[in-house]
């Protein structure tokens, strides 16, 4: 697993961004940037410098699910792995995210261990 990859963290709450950022740093991923919703995140992603997207679902402006769809629709970044970290627990929504092409789905509140496992799983599949 390459720990130097650039990761974008998208959440409307700054505390959640800080928590994810600290957990990622603890796992060795220090190369992170933040955005507070899909509208600000998308142009950042389109620069092509990010290799992983960690996003919330429910945000003002553009929601996480729409950000995911935009990423999958843009051929330059379509293959970027996307990990969703959200409080949305409806089965219907989890299925919707899966159909939109999410690579991992974590429900809040979550543990450092869960984040680690999901990231490992994502990279395992990428390298397979």
């Amino acid at each position: 697993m390459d720990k130097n990859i650039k990761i974008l963290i998208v959440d409307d709450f700054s505390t959640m961004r800080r928590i994810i950022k600290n957990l990622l740093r603890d796992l060795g991923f220090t190369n992170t940037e933040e955005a507070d919703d899909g509208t600000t995140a998308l142009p950042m992603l389109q620069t092509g410098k990010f290799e992983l997207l960690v996003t919330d679902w429910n945000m003002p402006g553009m929601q996480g699910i729409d950000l995911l769809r935009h990423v999958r629709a843009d051929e330059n970044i379509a293959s970027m792995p996307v990990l969703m970290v959200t409080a949305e627990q409806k089965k219907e929504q989890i299925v919707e995210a899966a159909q939109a092409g999410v690579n991992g789905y974590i429900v809040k509140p979550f543990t450092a261990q869960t984040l680690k496992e999901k990231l490992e799983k994502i990279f395992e599949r990428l390298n397979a």
Partner: protein
Amino acid sequence: MSNDALVNEDNLARARDLQACIKADDEKGTKEIIDDLTDIRENALYQEVGKLTRELHDAISAFGMDDRITDMTHHDIPDARQRLNFVITKTADAADRTLTAVEESIPICENMEQQAVSILESWRQFTQREMDAEGFRKLSKEIDGFLLTQSEGFSTLKGHLNDVLMAQDFQDLTGQIITRVINLVAEVEGNLVSLIKVAGLAEHHEQPQEKSRQELEGPAVPGVDSGDTVSGQDEVDDLLSSLGF
């Protein structure tokens, strides 16, 4: 014959007159009698509407909620909004203070950990008599520096732990505020139910419209049914693997 609003001797007389006029081919007379009857009918209707309006007004007044509802809309609800905003500010502030304390503590821990690992290595060499005098001088200097950073580091860490402790003071305040807002919501609910009863709409339960797909459910709350949800990460993983993930 009864003396109701419509069934009475006067109307019977009008009916006979109307029959006579029609038989006599009296267009003008027929029209006058029909106009009279229409007026009588409309008056009765207006009286009935007036009566209903008065009854509704009396019921609402007797219910004694005019003032309380006005008070709630003008004061309590904006007040509750302000209080809930305060809860958001307080909790965000507590989270920020805690995160700052943690973020500042981690490098101190990492630094102490690194130094301890390095000293431990040298110490092992020393106990196994693999160290010369020069090495030992270096080690004792290292231990000296380590003890100094430790005492400084621990005092800073203690300060940060205290910050984390103090940041929890929001719980008491937000708990009280939320309790008050819950009480207000209960009161509003009670009044709405009574209002529905006064308006006689209790039997007309309309099915609530299905939520639009755009509306997200948000965090699951124990005891609140929010439909077909999973309860935790394990169920998410099961669901996704059942979809071939």
